[in-house]
């Protein structure tokens, strides 16, 4: 009998969860259809390319939401992983364009006659596909391990990731002989699968690939955060010491989630690179990496949808404003940081939920649902009314 009572609600909860998942999948399918089929009919190729780039940036935002929103680690160095993914793909394209045994042109300028050793594996496409997310994941995992092992966290972690970013920037910027330094690698004239990357057909291909990758990454993040693993991340965010005292090892979880987040950023970097036509150390600019965080904050932390929404909206605002008034954009961006942090800590999604939630409930004449822990509290009966007291 007791088992029945326990099983019944669990089954109901599972069914409702399943229904929710189905609804979400339908919603995503509809959005994907709009993105892939309808929007290309209305937007000019230039705008569509721009949208494709924003969607690629939305993928990084997903990764940042995973570690900042859910795990509470504010990484200011995601540009590293973004750029590593971009460089990996760009290096493959560079080699793929040339024939066997030839070398990219810029090597000649610096007197390098032999292909450097770490370029060699990028001749193979399968390796590159793996490298796009494995290299950033390994770098992130290593950095994360060295930092988290010592229980360095909070602002220290943010500062260290920022310093790592500066270091990678310096390294890529200074090594003219190895990766063409400041100039970066151009991809728009490279050949991929027999076509120029910059050609209309290829652009459409990469646009669709970006939409697919975005959906796949969203599904991955959703899967990671909805189960026990996700609850673990939230527990680490809210009280890491208690997690440790409960017998779990937060370090392993943090390293893993940081590596996953780095891998996601790497994929985003590769997709962004082919759509913008170049990867240079500018992708590891400090400002760019902090901006990524603000996309998530604008959309709403720990919501995943918010990260995507925030990245697309902020970048649209940026391209609109900076096209017409380049000066105003920086003021606007600074104000955005201030407003989001002080007045809108839950972002657009959180604000929408609150506003809509209360509007809907009050329109339906329902009592506002607040402070659930008070509702659960057992009612206190005065001592004088208890049977024991009455007996005496």
């Amino acid at each position, binding site marked *: 009998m007791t088992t029945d009572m326990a099983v019944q609600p669990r089954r109901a909860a599972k069914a409702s969860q399943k229904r929710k998942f189905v609804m979400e999948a339908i919603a995503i399918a509809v959005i994907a259809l709009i993105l892939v089929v309808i929007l290309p009919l209305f937007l000019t190729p230039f705008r569509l390319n721009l949208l494709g780039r924003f969607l690629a940036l939305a993928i990084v935002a997903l990764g940042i939401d995973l570690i900042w929103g859910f795990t509470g680690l504010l990484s200011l160095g995601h540009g590293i992983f973004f750029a590593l993914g971009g460089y990996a793909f760009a290096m493959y394209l560079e080699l793929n364009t040339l024939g066997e045994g030839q070398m990219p042109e810029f090597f000649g300028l610096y007197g390098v006659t032999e292909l450097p050793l770490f370029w060699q594996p990028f001749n193979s496409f399968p390796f590159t596909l793996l490298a796009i997310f494995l290299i950033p994941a390994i770098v992130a995992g290593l950095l994360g391990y*060295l*930092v988290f092992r010592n229980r360095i966290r909070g602002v220290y972690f943010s500062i260290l990731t920022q310093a790592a970013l500066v270091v990678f920037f*310096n*390294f890529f910027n200074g090594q003219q002989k190895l990766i063409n330094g400041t100039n970066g690698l151009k991809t728009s004239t490279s050949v991929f699968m027999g076509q120029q990357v910059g050609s209309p057909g290829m652009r459409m291909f990469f646009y669709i690939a970006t939409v697919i990758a975005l959906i796949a990454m969203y599904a991955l993040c959703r899967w990671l955060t909805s189960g026990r693993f996700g609850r673990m991340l939230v527990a680490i965010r809210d009280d890491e010491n208690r997690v440790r005292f409960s017998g779990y090892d937060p370090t392993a979880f943090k390293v893993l989630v940081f590596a996953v987040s780095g891998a996601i950023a790497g994929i985003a970097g590769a997709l962004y690179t082919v759509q913008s036509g170049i990867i240079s150390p500018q992708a590891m600019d400090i400002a760019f990496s902090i901006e990524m965080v603000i996309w998530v904050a604008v959309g709403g932390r720990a919501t995943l949808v918010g990260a995507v929404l925030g990245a697309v909206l902020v970048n649209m605002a940026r391209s609109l404003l900076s096209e017409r008034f380049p000066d105003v954009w920086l003021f606007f961006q600074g104000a955005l940081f201030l407003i989001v942090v002080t007045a809108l800590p839950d972002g657009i999604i959180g604000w929408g939920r609150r506003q809509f939630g209360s509007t809907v409930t009050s329109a339906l004449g329902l009592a506002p649902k607040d402070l659930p822990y008070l509702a659960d509290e057992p009612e206190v009966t005065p001592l004088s009314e208890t049977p024991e007291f009455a007996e005496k």
Partner: protein
Amino acid sequence: MLEGLISGLFNGISIGAVLLIVALGLAIVFGLMGVINLAHGELMMFGAYTTFVVQNVAKSMGGIAPDLYIFAALPLAFLVAALLGLLLERTVIRYLYGRPLETLLATWGVSLILIQFIRSVSLPMVIGLAIFAGLFLVGRWVLTRYTDWERIGGWANPLFLGLSAAIAVLAWITIGNSTSAAFSRAWFSTRNVDVTPPSWLRGGITLGNTLQFPSARLFIIVLTVICLVAVYWFLNGTAWGLRIRSVTQNRGMSACLGIPTGQVDAITFALGSGLAGIAGCAVTLLGSVGPNLGSNYIVDAFMVVVVGGVGKLVGSIVAALIIGVTTYLVGSGTLALLFPPTAFLQPAIDFFTFFATTSMAKVMVFALIIAFLQVRPAGLFPPKGRSVEL
């Protein structure tokens, strides 16, 4: 060889001195309030631009003024940066205590605004700002006096802020469009400007045949020492210093004992910002001044704070010197020269030559810092006690 090492050490110490003077304010603010101020570099930039303005005024005065401007510029830079910091603390940071990550983002927003401000500040913009300040302050005063402010504050405050901002922006744009180009020209523009050091700081002291100590760097070292002594005296010899130290150790207990923690925060933040202004004044002696000046120093300054440990002046001093000397010795290639050129040591020489540029030196110093943090995660001089949780 020995002379090379001595001049290397001197240059390293002078870099360390610059780092220290930048990090000093940062360390005090971070130690007390747990606030990472990403706009610290921009406060520095304001100090540098103040110096630039003072120098131009001195130039136009002629006489001995161009040689003595630095003594007027130092306190002025301190004052400008401190006032700006005070404003920042009162309007933004005050509301974010206890949320370090949010403060990080908010101060970054402030730094973006300050950078763009320096780039595009012009007379119409200043007039617009004055209109905004006047409207907002006077309007608030009137409203709080003659209306039931407690009741209407919730919606009136943002409405009023928005209205004054809109009027001010409109005024800025109309004045900018309707007046002559010379009137509405940007004061500093985006390009770097040069500050000429006073003539007595341009040379150097020569010892022996090749040893040379540039006076500008000597001046910065002396300035850093003076700042350190002043800060030490302020923290250990004055009543406010005592309050600052007590709040740093235990905020809650200090508040219980009647220390006005809000005022302490404001004073500390102003002091830290003022030190940034002095740092800005000092770096004008080393190179040109531009809107991006701050970001060149900020990460290194944070490294000093992280390596030194929180809230310890000694830690910051030692860390700044170590980082400065290491960066210089690695970056200038002095280390590679120390090895005798034998085949046995060739790998070591190659290794150090690979890192022998300023930017590559940063790569190596970062690796060393990460390695160091494996041994001492809380820095050189970690704060003692159990309650520290950062």
